[in-house]
């Protein structure tokens, strides 16, 4: 028995040390990333949660319980901001998804020069939000902007766009749509090209029309891509800030004030850091709701059979 143990031990010990040694290297490799995540993600998250129950304004920091959250619900202005954010998100997602799917189908053709068109459609993605905001402000300019002069050419009166409180929000949505469709077009295109051509060939033999092929092959097969784009687009719709900051500063009369803009304004213009932290947690709840929707419904609605 003792001889047996002696015979087995060296080899076993060597294997254990290799494994422990590798595990040790595993920890060493992830330590920098983990420190980064703890310092700049986890700690701030806990910190923000704590702050949201205080009236911290860089001078005082008293515990105020749920007051910030109650204040948010009580303020009609804040509810308007949440309404703006949701409206912005809905308009953006609807337009963005419809247009990018249309573009993907359009550029999914074997035609000469199609890569040129794909590149042109992708160009807006390359502009920054600040550049997009400034360029579109020039396009919307009442007197010198080309949008009004094109409208005038067709006999339509000039509009105030960003200065008209009923048009401003949708005008900003257009900027995001313009900047975003090229990217989602590429994601949809990858999805379209992953659909096996045999399906279409079989459908053709059965005499299916183009619409039927779309309805019964493309649409269901594209469901995972569509769902993915939907989730990403809804999350990013809540994060709109740059173009609002550049184009309207939340105006006119708060018509384009969205959640992140309000958070920034409350925190860095008025120093209401506690109140702004509570707003940030409202944002987290909205985004979290989408993420949970994603987890719960992803298997029910989405066809992953491919």
């Amino acid at each position, binding site marked *: 028995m003792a001889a047996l143990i002696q015979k087995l031990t060296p080899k076993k010990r060597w294997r254990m040390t290799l494994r422990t040694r*590798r*595990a040790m*290297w*595993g*920890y060493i*490799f*992830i330590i*920098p*990333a*983990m420190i*980064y*995540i703890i310092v*700049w*993600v986890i*700690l*701030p*998250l806990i910190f*923000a949660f704590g*702050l949201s129950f205080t009236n911290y304004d860089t001078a005082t920091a008293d515990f105020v319980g749920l007051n910030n959250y109650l204040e948010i619900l009580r303020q009609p202005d804040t509810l308007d901001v949440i309404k703006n954010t949701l409206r912005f998100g809905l308009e953006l997602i609807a337009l963005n998804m419809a247009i990018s799917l249309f573009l993907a189908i*359009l550029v999914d053709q074997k*035609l000469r020069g199609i890569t040129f*068109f794909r*590149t*042109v*459609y992708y*160009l*807006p993605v*390359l*502009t*920054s*939000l*600040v*550049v*997009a*905001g*400034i360029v579109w402000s*020039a*396009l919307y*300019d009442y*007197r*010198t902007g*080309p949008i009004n002069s094109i409208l005038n050419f067709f006999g339509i009166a000039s509009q105030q766009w960003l200065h008209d409180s009923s048009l401003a929000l949708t005008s900003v949505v257009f900027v995001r749509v313009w900047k975003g469709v090229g*990217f989602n077009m590429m*994601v949809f295109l*990858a999805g379209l090209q992953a659909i096996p051509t045999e399906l279409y060939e079989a459908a053709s033999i059965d005499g299916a029309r183009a619409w039927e092929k779309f309805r019964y092959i493309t649409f269901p097969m594209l469901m995972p891509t569509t769902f993915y*784009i939907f989730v990403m687009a809804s999350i990013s719709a809540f*994060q709109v*800030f*740059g173009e609002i*900051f550049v184009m309207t500063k939340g105006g006119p009369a708060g018509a384009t004030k969205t959640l992140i803009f309000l*958070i*920034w304004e409350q*925190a860095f213009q008025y120093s209401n*850091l506690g109140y702004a*932290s509570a707003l*940030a*947690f409202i*944002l*987290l709840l909205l*985004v979290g709701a989408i993420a949970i929707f994603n987890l719960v419904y992803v298997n029910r609605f989405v066809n992953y059979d491919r």
Partner: protein
Amino acid sequence: MKNQLSSRFLSVQARKIAIYVLLIVVAIQLGLPFFYMVSTAFKSREEIFSGDMVWFPSSLHLDNFITAFNSAPFGRYILNTIFVAVVITLTTLFLCAMAGYAFGRISFPGREVLFVMLILAMSLPGEVTLIPRFLIAKNFPLAGGNDIFGRGGIGLIDSYGGLILPNLMRIYGVFLLRQFFRTLPNELEDAARIDGASEFGIFWRVMMPLSKTALITLGIFTFTAQWDEFIWPLVILNDSNKFVVQLGLSVFYSEHQVDWGPLMAASTIISLPAIFIFIFGQKYIVKGIATTGLKG
């Protein structure tokens, strides 16, 4: 019969032409803002403000570029941005590769739990933690006149460190590279181990060279995302000497509200790097989008 064939041929041709017309119409619509930016940059003042729409400048006026660069130090902003973006890209590649390699190829106790934590951290919108990150930067120990407890000074505010440290890596990069490392075969690693390579040697000399494509993709996305970064510099910087391009441009816009010529000139210049990177890195960008839906 012959008639039928030729009409079928015609309808195929007609369909092709219709698609080209549609492609061109869409290209004009999506390309118009871009075209207007570049053409206005080269217009004269009179052409911009005449009241009639001038689509093409009569000649390539460079005045707008000169005015823009004379009224704001865009050269300085560009150098600042390149410095910050290059440092962040390098640290991102190194840190994400190390962590991605460990999560993808080394088994250690607690790996799955830590990876779930990483995914959660990745999904958290940065804006939620904007305020505490600002406070952490301001109270960063031993920076900007702060003592060891982070009191007394301005911390990382108005410093390159304040731009770099909170963006030292992108969490999605760990995820992206982990997915990539998992696809590599074990044989290479085993062979290197038999040859007596250390664990770090295997990572650095065997795995890193194999991941060139994935690293270039992540590098392109990190650099361009950093070039476009706006909200964090806005929060952390007051000193215009440290401004990065997007912040500099937005301040320039607020000071020259409807002076469209110089504004379009500056916007054109600031858009150039992203376009160059796209032209040279198209292969990697398309691959990145197709495989992960990664957004820069």
